[in-house]
């Protein structure tokens, strides 16, 4: 991991306090006032996309927390022409206020992205009363090539233009905690698309036209990566070797 584009900040680090329920599902409390993660400025991101970058992944709290969210949104907009853009809204009601306060921004960011992943919990808060499949289709119409909605133990919904909307089953595992499970799903989706040479501006048409069989494979790897992470303490995503072992 190349951290040379990380920014030296004077502000303190944000803190998240995690509570793990009996089913392993987690809740977060946050200490984020005046912390470093929301202070992005354009000049700090000036060179972030230089060189051999085929995809930008951005998301979560930094894309809704002022004032830095605007700079990151501009980065995503700038990335759109040159590479695949990926986005995870990662809704945290505690920090985002009301859904109305962030819905417009989040849907604008969806419109800037080629790959979007959200959880059913995110959507239940952001767009209550709508089925994951409905939201996936509605978000596809905003521009993305692939939309994934995670359903916890029930697996996920994955949608693309030609592939249509599919459900993929979850995997039954003994859950330690769900910390980082959605992120493991996200990274596995991107790694799976990358491995199949579907990332980058030159691959845009192919990503847009991704077929059901390919998408199913990528989605199933993402389910597996998330399931493995749930069997571990904290955010500890699997390596390629871990995935091979689990599939063997």
């Amino acid at each position, binding site marked *: 991991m190349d951290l040379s584009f990380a920014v030296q900040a004077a502000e303190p680090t944000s803190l998240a306090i995690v509570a793990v329920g009996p089913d392993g599902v987690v809740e977060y409390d946050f200490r984020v006032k005046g912390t470093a993660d929301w202070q992005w400025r354009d000049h700090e991101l000036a060179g972030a996309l230089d060189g051999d970058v085929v995809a*930008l992944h951005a998301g979560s709290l930094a894309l809704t927390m002022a004032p830095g969210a605007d700079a990151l949104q501009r980065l995503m907009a700038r990335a759109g022409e040159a590479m695949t853009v990926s986005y995870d809204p990662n809704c945290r009601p505690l920090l985002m206020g009301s859904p109305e306060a962030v819905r417009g921004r989040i849907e604008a960011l969806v419109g800037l992205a080629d790959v979007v992943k959200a959880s059913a919990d995110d959507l239940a808060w952001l767009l209550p009363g709508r089925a994951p499949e409905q939201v996936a289709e509605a978000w596809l119409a905003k521009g993305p090539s692939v939309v994934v909605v995670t359903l916890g133990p029930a697996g996920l919904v994955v949608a693309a233009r030609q592939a249509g909307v599919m459900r993929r089953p979850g995997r039954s595992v003994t859950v330690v905690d769900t910390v980082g499970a959605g992120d493991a799903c996200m990274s596995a989706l991107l790694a799976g698309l990358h491995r*199949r040479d579907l990332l980058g501006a030159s691959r845009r048409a192919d990503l847009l036209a991704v077929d059901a069989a390919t998408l199913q494979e990528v989605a199933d790897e993402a389910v597996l990566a998330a399931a493995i992470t749930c069997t571990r303490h904290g*955010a500890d995503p699997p390596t390629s070797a871990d995935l091979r072992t689990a599939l063997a």
Partner: protein
Amino acid sequence: MQARLGSNEGDPVDPRSDAPAAKGGPGGPGVVAVAGEALIDFVPAGRNGLFEAAPGGSPANVAVGLAARRSRSGCWPGSPTTCSATASWPT
């Protein structure tokens, strides 16, 4: 936090493929850039109400997950243990 992850060339998830990771193997070229927060998660340590400090933040976790998917030749930088600012995510 911004991080970049190298190409996952030769990331053979397919159990039928036992080929070692190699340049020019399956997979696309280039790197993935990640931007967003890198924070500290205080996670219950499971004893006496104590908490462990663990690196977290959704985008940072995604960056770690992408790095973990690189070749099995060991580009994985090791488990970060703490960071005092967005810049100091240890490698």
